[in-house]
């Protein structure tokens, strides 16, 4: 089932034509209306007419969160304020928040994207959507709310918190779709156990969880505890909010709504675009936004894009779960390494709660990588051969994933230092 089948299943070639046309319009719009972009493009020697193919995208300068802060509050808006019908803002841990604006059309676009996401998950207008994302300046609550209404579903705008009321309404209203952060969903699941609510007796069938990173292990827990299909959603306020990408029930990554956004993966160090399949920083360009078009926005989220066919019939590329932030990146022997890549290998091997540490040192002129892996019961064997074999297989897999070799050192549980419950992932002993 699709919400906008024409776009969601558009052949890739036609989609590329549509993207180019919309990119050209977007560049013209920002060039004409946003001094910040006009200056940046001029500095790069680019005029709107220079955008002749999608390859020209890589010539455009990036936009960063700092750029949004520098132009606080409305400096990057491309329409007069009388056209802006809504503002949202992301929490600024230091200083001013970043502010985003929407025209009436932007709200329609966003609502359609969220309706697509809900339909992709298996939702319809018959569903009762309990929306436990926070309402307010944060985009999560309102974004999903408008999408669910657009779809024609029944929305319960309960917002976050007040767990006992969440559980009461969930039972009394017969909620079928739950939308919230995965950690809150897990908490709801635990509270169900504590209060003796049998999830099998609830009508819940779909969970749309996002706004924070989660894992396959959490998916399994959520599905077992809440008796539903748990799907991932991606979005960020600087781009539009939730509804940039949504996971389909194939559970093989989130389809990026490419008729509205161009996604690129770049090497965060050099800024060079990387091919599909390689991990790097996700960069997004909006194609249809009016109030706040955004050009090559650096999300700082690390992911991988995949363009192989999906069983659901959508032609949009998929992004894997966000596995980390660019801030965590290491460069070892000239290769970008993300601690989360090690985590994914360990998860692949069946380690359910991987604890590991990348120890980087320099021996002579060469970087040396040793990976400590806390040996879990699942991996443990009373046979030396089996453990040596495990080391060998991990080593081979890490070589193929990272592209560099590493020594594996199996260590006892709780050997790797943890601070505030979070494990430290990197020990860089290089003195450069």
């Amino acid at each position: 089932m699709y919400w906008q089948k024409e776009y969601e299943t558009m052949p890739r070639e036609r989609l590329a034509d549509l993207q180019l046309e919309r990119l050209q319009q977007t560049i013209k719009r920002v060039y004409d209306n946003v001094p910040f972009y006009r200056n940046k493009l001029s500095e790069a020697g680019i005029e709107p007419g220079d955008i002749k193919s999608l390859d020209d995208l890589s010539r455009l300068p990036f936009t960063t969160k700092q750029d949004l802060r520098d132009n606080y509050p409305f400096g990057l808006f491309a329409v007069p304020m009388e056209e802006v019908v809504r503002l949202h803002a992301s929490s600024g841990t230091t200083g001013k928040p970043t502010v985003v604006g929407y025209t009436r059309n932007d709200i329609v676009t966003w609502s359609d994207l969220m309706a697509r996401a809900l339909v992709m998950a298996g939702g319809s207008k018959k569903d009762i959507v309990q929306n436990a994302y926070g309402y307010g300046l944060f985009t999560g609550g309102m974004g999903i709310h408008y999408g669910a209404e657009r779809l024609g579903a029944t929305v319960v705008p309960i917002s976050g918190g007040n767990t006992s009321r969440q559980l009461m309404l969930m039972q009394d209203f017969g909620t079928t779709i739950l939308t919230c952060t995965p950690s809150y969903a897990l908490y709801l699941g635990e509270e169900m156990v504590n209060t003796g609510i049998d999830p099998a007796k609830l009508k819940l069938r779909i969970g749309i969880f996002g706004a924070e990173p989660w894992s396959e292990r959490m998916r399994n827990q959520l599905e077992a505890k809440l008796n539903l299909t748990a799907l991932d959603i991606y979005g960020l306020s600087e781009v539009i909010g939730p509804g940039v990408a949504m996971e389909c029930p194939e559970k093989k990554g989130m389809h990026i709504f490419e008729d509205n956004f161009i996604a690129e993966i770049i090497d965060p160090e050099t800024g060079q675009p990387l091919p599909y399949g390689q991990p790097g920083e996700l960069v997004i360009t909006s194609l249809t936004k009016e109030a706040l078009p955004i050009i090559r926005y650096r999300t700082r989220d690390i992911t991988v894009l995949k363009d192989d066919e999906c069983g659901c019939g959508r032609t949009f590329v998929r992004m894997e779960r966000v596995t980390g932030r660019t801030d965590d990146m290491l460069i070892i022997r000239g290769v970008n390494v993300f601690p989360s890549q090690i985590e994914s290998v360990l998860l692949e091997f069946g380690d359910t709660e991987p604890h590991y540490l990348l120890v980087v040192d320099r021996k002579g002129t060469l970087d040396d990588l040793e990976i400590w892996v806390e040996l879990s019961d699942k991996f443990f064997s009373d046979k030396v051969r089996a453990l040596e074999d495990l080391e060998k297989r991990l080593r081979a897999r890490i070589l193929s994933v990272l592209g560099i070799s590493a020594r594996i050192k199996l260590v006892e549980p709780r050997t790797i230092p943890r601070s505030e419950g979070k494990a430290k992932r990197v020990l860089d002993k290089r003195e450069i």
Partner: protein
Amino acid sequence: MKVKQISVFLENKSGRLAQVTRVLGENNINIRALSIADTTDFGILRLIVNNPDPAYRALKDAGFTVSTTEVIAVEVKDEPGGLARVLEILQNVNINIEYLYAFLQKATNAALVVFRVEQLDEAIKVLQENNISILEGSRVYAL
């Protein structure tokens, strides 16, 4: 006929073995036999104790990676070729021995050899058919 063996993962650093014995001591568990297999980086400590289940829990609670494995304890006659005979019997039916280690019984002075094999039931059957004495778990724990 099967004996529960506790295996503990140890990094090769000083004090770890002592820590295991301390944990067991504090929980009033006696070690009947032990063997260590080690590589340059890590070791696997294998233990036969008087009370395997509490030992497993105590070590687990102390944060060790622990597993239990079933092994067999064979009484080997204190005479030349005693062990060779047992090995031959197993070899003849293609039972692969993962590892073995021996310890002495205080009372009889006969050697006890702990065998770790994949085909446990087959091994027990063929050894019994050849009149090799296999000790019950309860007897081994109580040694």
